[in-house]
């Protein structure tokens, strides 16, 4: 039986891990390679690095982080943040990433999904979506640039389009729930997983081990991702996995 995955996310700016609260007010957390190693020992099933550097120097530091991590850790690694072209994607894959996550660049140029999934294989193209509920429209819309810019693209339309274009996985962040630590957005995530047949990683809102249990019992998503609660050691990955196991959600143990 396939295991539900627990994925820590490391937002990296200029080579240092940071994490925002609802995408604002960044604070520094630590060295990405050290954190990655710690999470690996605690049972992380996969690592996601999001590069939020805005400079070329920052991007180059990210490639070093990927190389160093890939030499020491042998679990899957996904890289996102600012990847715009086939060349950008080639660089991170060659450095040792297994998957890339595309967000703004895919919304701006959807053909990029077709081109990259044909060139690198659908399995390494993960489409990241920042979704926000809009009361007046009674629907979710996609946001770009780390949640700063709204697009006119409806999230439930976009997920079907990216699947058709060759995405191998979705990483869905609920902007309404992100940073609130009140649990994942089951309404949004259930709707999305029902509409697509590719795996979905849920993101935004994890505040406790119980939140992961509810996520897996109440939706069909394949994985849960979190940053702050793991960085702040409110709860460890091991604790999440132990609780999931006792509640009937099978986990992989190291």
């Amino acid at each position: 039986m396939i295991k539900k995955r627990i994925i820590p996310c490391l937002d990296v700016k200029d080579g240092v891990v940071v994490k925002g609260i609802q995408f604002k007010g960044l604070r520094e957390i630590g060295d990405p390679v050290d954190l990655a190693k710690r999470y690996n020992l605690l049972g992380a099933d996969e690592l996601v690095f999001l590069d939020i550097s805005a400079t070329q120097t920052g991007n180059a530091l990210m490639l070093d982080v990927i190389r160093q991590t890939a030499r020491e850790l042998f679990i899957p690694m996904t890289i996102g943040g600012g990847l715009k072209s086939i060349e950008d994607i080639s660089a991170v894959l060659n450095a040792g990433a297994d998957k890339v996550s595309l967000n703004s660049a895919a919304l701006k140029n959807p053909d990029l999904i077709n081109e990259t999934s044909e060139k690198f294989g659908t399995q390494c193209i993960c489409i990241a979506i920042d979704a926000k509920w809009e009361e007046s429209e009674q629907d979710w819309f996609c946001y770009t640039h780390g949640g700063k810019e709204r697009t006119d693209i409806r999230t439930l339309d976009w997920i079907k389009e990216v699947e058709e274009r060759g995405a191998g996985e979705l990483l869905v962040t609920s902007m309404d729930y992100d940073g609130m630590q009140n649990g994942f957005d089951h309404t949004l995530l259930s709707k999305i997983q029902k509409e697509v047949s590719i795996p979905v990683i849920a993101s935004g809102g994890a505040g406790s081990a119980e939140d992961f249990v509810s996520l897996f019992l109440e939706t069909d998503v394949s994985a849960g991702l979190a940053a702050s609660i793991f960085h702040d050691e409110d709860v460890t990955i091991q604790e999440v996995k132990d609780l999931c196991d006792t509640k009937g959600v099978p986990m992989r143990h190291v």
Partner: protein
Amino acid sequence: MIAIVDYGLGNIANLSNALHFLGYEVRVTNKVSELEAADQIILPGVGHFKDAMNRLNDLNLVPELIKLKESKPFIGICLGMQLLFEHSEEGDVDGLNFLPGQVKKMTCQLPVPHLGWNKLNASLPSLEEDVYFIHSYKVHTDENVVAKANYEEDVVAIVQKDNIIGIQFHPEKSGDKGLQILNQALKGGFNQ
């Protein structure tokens, strides 16, 4: 020395990292002389079956690989395992035909790709571990099967026929247990 066949497909860096970590000398190459000098051959691969066969043909590597598998331990990983079989639906092309079997698209109700950690079922206890899979096509064969996983339906995970081994999952991405399985494959495999 282990030669990883370089035909422009797949995440060779990580396989190479894993082999270095295990203490092996590694060469990533498509040169005939280097392949012939190697003690073992690994055929990696991620991506599209037809694209992979086209690249092997463009590099004139198919006759060479046929020769190598007669004389050396030969391990195919992920798409590299699928290439060892007769034919694939992905692009409707013939494979290397080292082993009997067909590669077909997975048709289960669960999400495809089959992505994530799944437990191996094998008669060898050392293989009963969670390992990392990521694939949308799978091998159909009744012969030479060493380990399977279950994903609504059986998924052939490891095959071995004498010196030829195929591994569908990514041992280089399956943590410490994956590295142990990779090492076991390189030390002669799973047929006791």
